[in-house]
């Protein structure tokens, strides 16, 4: 632990906070349909798209048709990606001669990219053709992120509107999110990354003869373009197997910081959009503050644990922290901060091997995901996940004083609370359910790499990451087996859509309600009391649900480490 490390954390947080209202203002303009400085270029493309697709952009949708549109859009995406991966050997742009992807692996990968998870049971440079990376994975990186933004907007409109039957038009939202928000930022990011040293070529892998005369095949490709959206869209699926720790996928400490910023910037800005749309920016800042408290707590614990290292290191007289599975250019702080950022959002890119983190350092990413990735969160998904917890918090506060709770002028009633609970229950169901099956099913147990409690953490992490649509891994686990491919695919599907449908139902029900003016009996939701209560509810719900599982994994491993036990 040193001064430079704390400076890096402070510098990163400052830039993120400064960017939030700026990007929030831009996003609000885009989704309110106002002119922006990109309109002269993008508006004509947008109009042509609506005309060919037969979309009336003025025609808004009821929440049910909005949801159906979203689901159909995903069906189209699923079929396209599945066929592309199966047929890649017959298609162009395949200089490394990759064969077709196996059926179970294709199912898992397709689900993974469709649901914004980007869990990777494949090694990028050893499995995917350039065409699959571009037209398959990059496309879903964009569209799954744009879907997330669309859903969060529908929910925000539910809060912001009164006595309305509609929550927006899905086709307009997804088009604007892609063209006006994701694409322009990605162009800038991609060029920045190339400048820092990321390759962007369609040429074949490079054959080098090393200084000692050995042969080295260096995998390259159209990396920067995919990495920009991988981060901005909180997707996380790497071009290379080692993801953002690969020096060609994250060449410098500067690119590392830009990557972390890209992961969080839209999620953070959406809290500001929420504030602006409901007519009070302080509502947005209160949510952002609750996220910030949880974020900083995670950073401090993870950074401390990794700096402290392990008993093994101390006994051998090695100082400098746990550098196993970390890259030197990022160091302890750049790796710990990235781990918290990527699991706070639903990104799942990794710049260090989480499997080799200390027990407590590796528990922070686990907890971040188990709370539902609402600490800033995935693009869109973070905000709608957080608003579900807000509904729960408001409900509990209402119970304490014995009156129907309100939030930003909307009465929160039985239907909203039921839907919120339905969505929140999907996490324990999928995470604990599948983990329980996997630790007693022999073929699944055979995939575990590290024996002892760490092995249990690997399985718990795998289902946590997939259900929460994160995609990072304790990568020692051999995931490319029929069991993990299929079980994981189901966990990702349920984890995504079982959240989305209740969230949309809430959006529809809120939009239809009248707005009630705040009175002296209204619980204020812009102050420290509300932020504290919200953080408390999140931790209690998450804690009660997952503490027993954590106790068997990372907590017992930490105690074993302190006692000097090895496995």
């Amino acid at each position: 632990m040193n001064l430079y490390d704390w400076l890096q954390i402070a510098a990163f947080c400052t830039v993120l906070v400064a960017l939030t209202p700026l990007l929030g203002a831009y996003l609000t303009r885009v989704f309110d349909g106002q002119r922006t400085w990109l309109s002269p270029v993008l508006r004509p493309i947008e109009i042509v798209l609506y005309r060919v697709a037969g979309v009336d952009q003025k025609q808004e949708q009821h929440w049910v048709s909005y949801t159906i549109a979203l689901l159909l859009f995903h069906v189209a995406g699923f079929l396209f990606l599945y066929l592309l991966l199966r047929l890649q050997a017959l298609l162009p742009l395949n200089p490394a001669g990759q064969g077709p992807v196996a059926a179970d692996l294709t199912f898992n990968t397709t689900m993974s990219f469709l649901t914004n998870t980007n869990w990777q049971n494949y090694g990028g440079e050893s499995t995917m053709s350039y065409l699959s990376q571009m037209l398959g994975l990059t496309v879903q990186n964009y569209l799954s992120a744009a879907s997330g933004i669309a859903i969060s907007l529908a929910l925000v409109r539910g809060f912001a509107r009164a006595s309305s039957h509609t929550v927006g038009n899905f086709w307009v939202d997804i088009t604007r999110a892609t063209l006006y928000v994701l694409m322009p930022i990605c162009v800038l990011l991609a060029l920045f990354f190339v400048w820092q040293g990321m390759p962007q070529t369609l040429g074949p892998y490079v054959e080098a003869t090393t200084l000692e005369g050995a042969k080295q095949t260096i995998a390259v490709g159209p990396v920067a373009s995919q990495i920009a959206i991988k981060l901005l869209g909180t997707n996380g699926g790497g071009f290379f197997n080692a993801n953002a720790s690969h020096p060609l996928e994250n060449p410098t400490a500067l690119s590392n910081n830009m990557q972390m910023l890209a992961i969080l910037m839209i999620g953070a800005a959406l809290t500001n959009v929420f504030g602006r749309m409901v007519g009070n920016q302080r509502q947005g800042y209160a949510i952002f503050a609750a996220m910030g408290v949880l974020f900083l707590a995670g950073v401090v614990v993870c950074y401390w644990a990794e700096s402290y290292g392990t008993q093994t290191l101390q006994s051998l007289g090695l100082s400098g922290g746990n550098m196993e599975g970390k890259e030197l250019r990022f160091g302890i702080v750049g790796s710990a901060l990235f781990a918290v950022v990527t699991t706070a959002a639903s990104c799942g890119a990794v710049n260090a091997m989480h499997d080799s983190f200390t027990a407590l350092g590796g528990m922070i990413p686990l907890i971040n995901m188990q709370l539902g990735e609402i600490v800033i969160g995935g693009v869109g998904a973070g905000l709608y996940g957080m608003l579900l917890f807000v509904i729960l918090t408001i409900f509990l506060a209402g119970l304490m004083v014995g009156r129907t709770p309100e939030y930003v002028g909307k009465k929160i009633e039985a239907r909203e609370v039921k839907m919120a609970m339905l969505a929140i229950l999907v996490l324990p169901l999928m995470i604990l359910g599948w983990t329980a099956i996997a630790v007693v099913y022999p073929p699944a147990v055979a995939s575990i790499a590290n024996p002892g409690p760490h092995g249990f953490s690997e399985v718990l992490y795998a289902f946590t990451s997939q259900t929460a649509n994160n995609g990072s891994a304790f990568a020692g686990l051999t995931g490319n087996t029929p069991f993990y491919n299929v079980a994981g695919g189901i966990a990702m599907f349920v984890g995504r859509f079982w959240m989305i449908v209740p969230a949309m139902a809430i959006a529809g029900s809120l939009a239809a309600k009248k707005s009630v003016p705040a009175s002296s009996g209204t619980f204020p939701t812009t102050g420290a009391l509300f932020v504290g209560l919200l953080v408390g509810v999140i931790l209690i719900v998450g804690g009660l649900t997952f503490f027993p599982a954590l106790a068997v994994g990372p907590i017992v491993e930490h105690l074993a480490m302190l006692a000097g036990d090895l496995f």
Partner: protein
Amino acid sequence: MLKQIRPAIVSFTILAAITGLGYPLAITGIAQLVMPEQANGSLIKQNGQVIGSELVGQAFTQDKYFHGRLSATTGPDPQDASKSVAAPYNAANSMGSNLGPTSAALKDRLTADVAAAKKENPSAEVPVDLVMTSSSGLDPHISPDNALFQVPRVAKARGIDEAKLRDLVQSQIEDRDLGIFGELRVNVLKLNLALDRMGS
């Protein structure tokens, strides 16, 4: 619902073409035009032959070169392609060791490597990045302490004065980005290239 099938197919197709072909190809074009050096992998050439990428570490095993960090990458077994064997710095299959904090295998490996390092240079503290594997298995950098730790071995193998070699290492230390981000580090390939130039 049927009314929505057309927009689903058409929107998906157009957006896929823009984001999956238009966008990456445009970035490729601009990058190749403006920054061809980086866009092709920051390759280092010597006598017209590619000897590596300045960003990708490569395996050094000889005493006369500075060694990079330990690498856990694997490659296909030449005897049986369905199995994999250790192949350090395989830049077509990046990966880490994934050994956990209470792994006995990790402790055994570290114990052996620390003992070997102490034998090589008994006078200095063993730097942690000398014995722990990197995340990608392709880390191009080592810490300044790690480079200085290796000076006696390299000096002996080359018959150069240690002080001169330490000066060379000092001159190769790269600062933090913008003065605050990242760590002080030495690029192993560049250091070894400088070393070869010095020798001749």
